[in-house]
């Protein structure tokens, strides 16, 4: 992709332990604008932990995160959001008691117009419903009415909401942790096409997935995690196929690259 431009995201020797379990060990990573980076690895390899470090839910023990060259120490996910990092969490991070629309705008509500709207923080509830509906429509995501509580959605519908939210807001970097896990065939196609669209808008995307087909279809480069370490970082230039990736994941093939 745009390897000659400076990376928008740079992780340097990031480590994270849970007691004696080393979830991440000296992981370095780069992401460029308009690039889709596939992040693959076995269950428990540390992918979600890495995503958490990038999106501010986890604080690394050591190592640094740089966004657009500036070092960031996220104390919470709100700070990561502020520099333009959107995340589809593996647990989806939806509030079951709130409606779909409320979930989409939670933490960045729209305010009413008029002189009082913004200073008084007056919620524009109708506006948010309409805008969320328009947003999902624009993305091609169709859902039950947006006043439905998240608790009443099917597994796939929930995932769609979470993805839609991230894509709607994501202007710079989008991290997706197994976004297609619960999705149907058509919906999966849609998500892959959304990723391509993000890419064409110069957004950097990190895609965590266990589905090699999906990774091979949309990713420009693949980083492989094993036991908390990054064991490979290969561009997908046509010479790499699924079997090769699986080999890297399991350790049948050894390769190490920065």
């Amino acid at each position, binding site marked *: 992709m745009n390897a000659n431009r400076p990376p928008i995201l740079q992780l340097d020797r990031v480590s994270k332990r849970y007691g004696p379990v080393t979830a991440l060990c000296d992981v370095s990573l780069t992401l460029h604008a308009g690039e889709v980076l596939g992040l693959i690895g076995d269950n428990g390899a540390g992918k979600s932990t890495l995503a958490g470090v990038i*999106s501010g*839910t986890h604080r690394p023990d050591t190592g640094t995160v740089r966004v657009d060259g500036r070092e960031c120490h996220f104390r*919470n*996910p*709100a700070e990561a*959001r502020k520099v333009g990092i959107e*995340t589809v*969490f593996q*647990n*989806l*991070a*939806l*509030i*079951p*008691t*709130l409606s779909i629309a*409320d*979930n989409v705008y*939670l*933490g*960045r*509500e729209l305010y009413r117009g008029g002189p009082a709207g913004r200073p*008084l*923080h*007056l*919620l524009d509830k109708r506006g948010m*419903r309409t805008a*969320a*509906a328009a947003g*999902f*429509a*624009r*993305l*091609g*995501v*169709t*859902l*039950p*009415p*947006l*006043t*439905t*509580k998240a608790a*009443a959605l099917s597994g*796939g*519908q929930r995932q*769609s909401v979470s993805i839609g939210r991230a894509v709607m807001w994501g202007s710079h970097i989008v991290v997706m942790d197994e976004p297609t896990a619960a*999705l*149907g065939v*058509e*919906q999966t196609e*849609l998500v892959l*096409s*959304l990723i391509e*669209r993000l890419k064409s808008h110069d957004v950097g995307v990190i895609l965590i997935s266990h589905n090699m087909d999906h990774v091979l279809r949309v990713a420009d480069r693949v980083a492989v995690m094993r036991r908390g370490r990054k064991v490979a970082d290969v561009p997908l230039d046509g010479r790499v196929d699924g079997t090769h990736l699986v080999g890297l994941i399991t350790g049948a093939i050894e390769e190490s690259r920065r």
Partner: protein
Amino acid sequence: MIGATHARRAASGHAALPNRERLRKVVTTAASYQSGGLAIALLLLCLFFALASRQFLSVSNLTVVLLQVAPVGLIAIPAAMLLLAGYIDLSVGAVAWLCSAVFGILVVDHGLGPLPAAVTALLVGGVWGLLNGVLTTRLNASPIVVTLAGFAAARGIGDALTGKVTRFGFGPGLGWFGNGHILGLPVPACLFLVVLVVGLYLWYSTPVGRHLAATGADRESARAVGVAVRGLPFWAYTATGVMAGLAGLVIVAQLDASTVSIGTGIEVQVLTAILLGGVSFQGGRGSLWGVLFGVLFVGILTNGLVLLNVGPFYVDVAVGGVLFVVALMDVAYQRLEKVPVAAATAEAAPSRNGAVA
């Protein structure tokens, strides 16, 4: 397109039952502003008292009710916000007494004017609340243990400061604050209304309400989407402390005396009102209108039983009986509501299918 089939199906289900849907919509809307069967129970209670006592519906008695609910109501507004976010404050009664004690000492023993003394007292309440907030939201100490500690400590400090000796004679200025009227409404009732309006504004018109609810429902997810899961309860604690102080001062003003029994048991009344109002004990769900109904319910019940001169042995039986009825109405209401809740999903316009991007 994701869920297109679903939207179509839902829409058709909707079209089939226009009248039932409209009814459901009314019930659902009502449900979002009251809680369980409480509003109905409150109406029935008023009806009963109105039939049983000629005085009940008199303007003077209703004014008295408003006057009586003010202290509990003042505290219940921020305390309901705390509970919505999954936190609790058991120290409010003790803090009310501590603030009253500080006020009494400053005015009577040190000759300070009522206004600076009141400001200092409220400051004490605010600082105590702030302390609760720091311990629970920053240090993750148990809200129960911390505020139970405050429950004992604040009362003890008040007792020790005053030696349990009542301070009295604060003069007419303070008297107006407790017993005066503005446009026919008692001043404490006006204070309550102002706080209520601010509370309703925060709860329903700004992001505060939904952020608190999100914090109470799923703290980690709320944090992940950028909700200030520490900041909001922190400020709610502080506000609760200030309001506890204000409630204490209102009682002092009414009594024209700062006396040790102030605030005793007020935390139970506040919690009763909030929980009757349907705020979930675990946080995450609740309506401030429901809390208002809860506050009024407790106040009207007390007032009505005195009006009817229910013998002292039977007051508790009556209160208990009424609460049982409220619990059962809530059960009945839940069953009724089951359908409407899902119905709410069908009535809004389904989002249209856009072209795949």
